[in-house]
C-alpha cells in the first residue's frame, strides 16, 4: 500500500511540476518549409478555388519584406502587395489578414479575388504572412501576429496611406488581428472599416461549445484572443459574413456573438445559407461578393 501511495505522490509531483501542457501551439498550423511563393503555380491546397480568368498582371504583384521586433529578435516578415504601390498615397487599400493555415500561397486566390473588387486593380490589396508562416521568420505567437499586422500597417503608412482609406479584412484567425487593429490605438494605422469573414468569438466559446458546460478556457490555453470583447472597442463600420452551415466556427455562438457585440449602428451582414467555413464567397456568388464589398467600401453610411 505504501508503494502505491508513493507512486501516486510521485505522479502528482511530476504532473504538476513537469507537465503544464498548453494547446496554444495548435492555434498556428503554419508551414514554413517553402523557399519561394509560387502563387498561381502553387500545387498545394488552396483556401478558395477561383476561375482561371482571375488573372493578376506581373507588374501588379509586389513581393517584399518588412521587419518587426519580437522581444529581442528582429524578424523579417514576407508580404505581397497587389496593385499600384504609388496609388497607396491616394486610394483605398485593403489589408487582408489570413487564416491560420500554411502560408500566403494557400490564400493567394483570396487576395486575387479582393483585387477584383470594383475591377481588377481597383483597390490595392496587401497580404502578409504571420511570423513562422511561409518565408516569414520566427515562431508564431499571438503577440507577434499583432506585431506583424502593425508592421504591415506601418509599411502602408510609409507609402502614404491614411486611416480614412484603410479597410482591414480578417478571415477566421485573421479576425483577431483585424479586431485588434481596429480597437487598439497602438497600431500604426486604424482602419476606417473592417470586414470579418467567419470570425471566431473566443477560446472560451470554443471550449464551451465542445464541452456543453461552462468550462474556463484557461484549463487548456493561454491565448487571450477574444474577438467577442475586442469588437466592442471597434468603433468603425463592420461587414460580417458567415456561412450558416459553418460546421467549425458556429454561425451562432461565434460569428453572431461578435456581430451583436459590435456597438456601432452602421454594420451589415451576410448570413450565407449553405456555406461552410471555407466557401462563403462562393456561396454568396463571386460577383455578388465583390459587389457587396465594393458597396461597403464606398458607402458613407
Amino acid at each position, binding site marked *: 500500500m505504501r508503494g502505491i501511495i508513493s507512486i501516486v505522490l510521485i505522479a502528482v509531483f511530476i504532473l504538476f511540476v513537469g507537465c503544464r501542457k498548453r494547446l496554444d501551439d495548435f492555434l498556428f498550423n503554419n508551414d514554413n518549409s517553402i523557399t519561394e511563393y509560387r502563387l498561381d503555380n502553387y500545387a498545394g491546397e488552396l483556401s478558395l478555388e477561383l476561375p482561371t480568368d482571375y488573372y493578376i498582371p506581373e507588374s501588379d504583384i509586389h513581393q517584399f519584406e518588412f521587419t518587426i521586433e519580437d522581444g529581442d529578435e528582429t524578424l523579417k516578415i514576407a508580404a505581397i502587395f497587389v496593385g499600384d504601390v504609388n496609388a497607396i498615397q491616394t486610394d483605398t487599400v485593403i489589408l487582408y489578414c489570413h487564416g491560420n493555415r500554411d502560408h500566403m500561397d494557400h490564400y493567394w486566390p483570396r487576395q486575387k479575388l479582393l483585387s477584383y473588387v470594383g475591377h481588377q486593380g481597383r483597390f490595392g490589396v496587401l497580404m502578409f504572412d504571420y511570423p513562422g508562416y511561409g518565408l516569414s521568420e520566427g515562431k508564431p505567437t499571438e503577440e507577434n501576429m499583432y506585431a506583424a499586422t502593425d508592421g504591415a500597417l506601418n509599411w502602408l503608412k510609409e507609402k502614404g496611406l491614411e486611416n480614412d482609406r484603410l479597410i482591414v479584412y480578417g478571415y477566421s484567425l485573421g479576425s483577431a488581428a483585424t479586431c485588434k487593429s481596429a480597437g487598439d490605438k497602438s497600431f500604426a494605422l486604424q482602419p476606417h472599416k473592417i470586414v470579418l469573414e467567419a470570425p471566431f468569438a473566443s477560446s472560451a466559446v470554443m471550449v464551451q461549445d465542445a464541452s456543453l*458546460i461552462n468550462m474556463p478556457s484557461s484549463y487548456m490555453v493561454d491565448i487571450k484572443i477574444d474577438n467577442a470583447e475586442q469588437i466592442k472597442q471597434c468603433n468603425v463600420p463592420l461587414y460580417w459574413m458567415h456561412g450558416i452551415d459553418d460546421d467549425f466556427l458556429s454561425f451562432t455562438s461565434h460569428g453572431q456573438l461578435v456581430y451583436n457585440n459590435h456597438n456601432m449602428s452602421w454594420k451589415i451582414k451576410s448570413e450565407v445559407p449553405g456555406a461552410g467555413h471555407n466557401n462563403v464567397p462562393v456561396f454568396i456568388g463571386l460577383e455578388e461578393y465583390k459587389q457587396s464589398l465594393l458597396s461597403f467600401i464606398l458607402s458613407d453610411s
Partner: protein
Amino acid sequence: MYSRNYLLFIGIIALMLSACGPARFVEPLSKNENAIGIDLGGPMVKVPGIATMPIPFSSVTYGRGVSNNLTIHGSWYTTAAVFGVAQIGGGATYGAWKSKNQKHGASAMLGFNTAIDVFENNFKFWPQLDAHYYFKYNFRSLTQDDLLNKGGRPSANMLYVGIGSWYELSSVKAHGEKQETVVVPMLNLGHDLNWKKWTFKTELKLLAPFSSNEDIVLDYISLTGKKGATGLYFGLIRRF
C-alpha cells in the same frame, strides 16, 4: 482555411474534462473493503487523417466501504493534470436495493467534480448524480475469504445499466451568454469482469444524447447520430 487541429485538440481536452470516467462502484464495496482503480478512455472522436478512437482520458480512483451499503470514493483525473488542471471528483454510492439472491441490485451515487487550473486559478464545481441497476452472473463458490472479508458475497461478473448526470451551476457562460445546458445526461452500459481481487471494467457511455453535435469543433462519433457522443472506457480495479 482555418485548420481544425487547434480547435480539435481544445475540444478534445474540454470534452475529456467534462466526460469524466466510468461509473464508480456500481455495487458498493463491503464494509471496510478498499479498492484502487485506474481507468482509461473517453468519448469517441474522429481525428482527421488519423483514426476514429476513444480519447485516452485517465483517472485514479480510491474507494472504501463505510458499510455494506455505502461506499465513499474519490478520483483524481491524471490527464487533466497534464494540462495544469487539478481535477478531482468524489462521491458516495448507496446500495438502494438488492434482491434476496443478490443477483440484482440498484444503487445511486451522489458526487461532485471540481477543477482548478494553476494558471489563472479558475475554479469550477459540478455536482453529479448517477443511478444504476446491475445484474450479476457466473457466481463462483463462496470462499472463506468471501465470508471473512466481503460480507459473505461470492464473486460474480456483473452487467449494469444506468443514467448519470452532471449539473452546471452557472447561469451564464462566456461573454454573458445564457448557459442553456444545465444538465448533461449520460446513459451508461457496463460490464465488470470480476476475479477474486481484481475487476476489469468495460463501459459504454452515451454522453449528452439529446444535444446536437453539429457545428462545433469536434467530429464526434455517436450511436445517436447527430446527438451527443459515445464514450468507451476501460478500468482495472484492485480490492484489498
